[in-house]
């Protein structure tokens, strides 16, 4: 993550309380290869069962509240990295999911009022990290995001937590 502006088209999955079993089902837990995880993303979420087969490269995923609640499974993060999403914007995230994502280099941005912010599918979105601002360029409106904590940015910039660990002896 080299610049402070992240932009991409919106891919909306504006459903609250999406559990990790709906993101990546427990019957698939022996799968770890990112490319093999990819087609199964949201395979257990009504209305989004074909999501895994879409091309979402460079998009920004838009979700509701409590996204990623449930288990600790890393695949629920890996799958979105494999889809090459630039970030996930949501009202709130399960606490374990939040750290799993950040540590693996997937940026999560909290926008508590996301449900009241107009976003249509494929609208052009822009996240300004320094200003903590989400802009819908298509509709020319913007809204405040929660400030992204500095340590989180440091981990993102290092390319994930594992690279930081190399410094420890």
């Amino acid at each position, binding site marked *: 993550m080299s610049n402070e502006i992240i932009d991409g088209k919106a891919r909306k999955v504006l459903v609250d309380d999406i559990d990790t079993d709906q993101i990546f089902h427990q019957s698939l*837990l022996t799968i770890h290869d990112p490319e093999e995880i990819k087609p199964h993303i949201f395979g*257990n979420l*009504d209305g989004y069962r074909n999501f895994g087969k879409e091309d979402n490269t460079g998009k920004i995923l838009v979700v509701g509240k409590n996204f990623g609640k449930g288990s600790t499974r890393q695949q629920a993060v890996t799958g979105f990295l494999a889809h090459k999403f630039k970030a996930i914007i949501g009202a*709130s995230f399960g*606490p374990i999911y939040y*750290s799993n994502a950040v540590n693996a280099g997937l940026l999560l941005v909290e926008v508590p009022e996301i449900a009241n912010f107009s976003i249509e599918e494929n609208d052009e979105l822009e996240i300004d990290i320094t200003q903590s601002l989400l802009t819908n360029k298509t509709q020319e409106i913007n809204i405040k995001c929660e400030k992204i904590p500095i340590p989180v940015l440091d981990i993102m910039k290092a390319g994930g*937590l*594992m690279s930081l660990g*190399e410094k420890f002896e």
Partner: protein
Amino acid sequence: MEGFTLIEKIIRKHTDAADEDIYPGNIVWINLDIVTARDYAGPQVIDLFQKYYPGSKTFDNNKIIFTPDCYPYGNDPKHVKDQEKIRVFAKEHDIKVTDLGSGIGSHLLFRRGFSKPGDIVIGADSHYNILGALGILGQGAGDVTLAFAFKTGKSWIKIPETVKVILEGKYTWPTTSKDLALYVLKQLHEYGITGKAIEFCGDVISELTIEDRVTLCSLITEASGMIGFVPTDEVTTEYYKQRNIDIEVLTGDENANYASEFTINIDNLGLYVACPPHPHNVKPIEEVLGTPINSIILGSCTNGSASDIHEAARVLKGSQIKPEVRFGIVPATREDFVEINLNKDMTIILEAGGNFFGAGCSTCAKGQYGLTGGETAVTLTTGNRNTQGKIGPADVYLASPVVAAATAIEGKIAKPKMRDD
């Protein structure tokens, strides 16, 4: 100066950050007391560790434990290889393994005294926050977080706001701590505790056993909370005394900065069932009485203790489980298995038609007894998750061991008529 909440106190003891940096919303680095991994995720943690830190030692082999508890003995070639990978790595690095049949890692941490109040522990189990029942800061973590912790002994934590939850009143049988936990889950989900810590208080707390407290704290995850704590008291002190461990009594400061206080009245609490498709879809049992059930599981870190099995045995004694109902029991740990053998609960349940599986996890992560089949396998479990499609395409209900036993006899969701005293 303002005091600290319980979680702030624990974090403060585990960080180099200054006191003024201990406030909700801030992120600090913490030093971990114990890092665990299980047969699920453990092999990926090992792969990451070896890829990024080749030839490296772990931060402290005495502070890491492998706790295979997810998958049974050899039911899938991948699991067997994963379990072997753990044993090989553990031997090479001289790391303790509580191998298959020992039980659920989170339970072993307190049952065997591996961790004590005030500790910080992480592992690949989203219900590690049940340890809050004993004043331990337990957190679930994914592969990357754990692999980094294996190497450094460190992790970062976003200091949560703390909500003080006051439980007002008392309940009596057939209501148990599971009904309390389900009712509290429903209230807290509506109240909104995403990412927050809870401190439970109220007169009822001193009457709850360690197992009851574990049940209560186990559903905080399902409300997207970070952790629920029961501040340590005589019950906790006595529990550790039996394990020859002295503990420090840990409570939040009176002048701590609580985000809010929330009172839940539990007087005359009835029986509750979590209905599809979410754990927080909790309803009074009266609304679902008579729902046909043909698959029942008694187990999990929420309700797999000997005391839970005992509750079921008391209802089942002298009765027969309906032949079309499959009633599986998965004791949480080997110690629970021993206990139900000594007190004959196992015999009572076997004679009633129940089936026992090896100690460990159950439906939550596949476990010793996991997926239940097709559209017709409607399940009631004492576990903690009923997300649609999780263990099969059919509906899943969550309830107490007492309700599970009554339902097993009737083949439909039922209230217990009596129990053997």
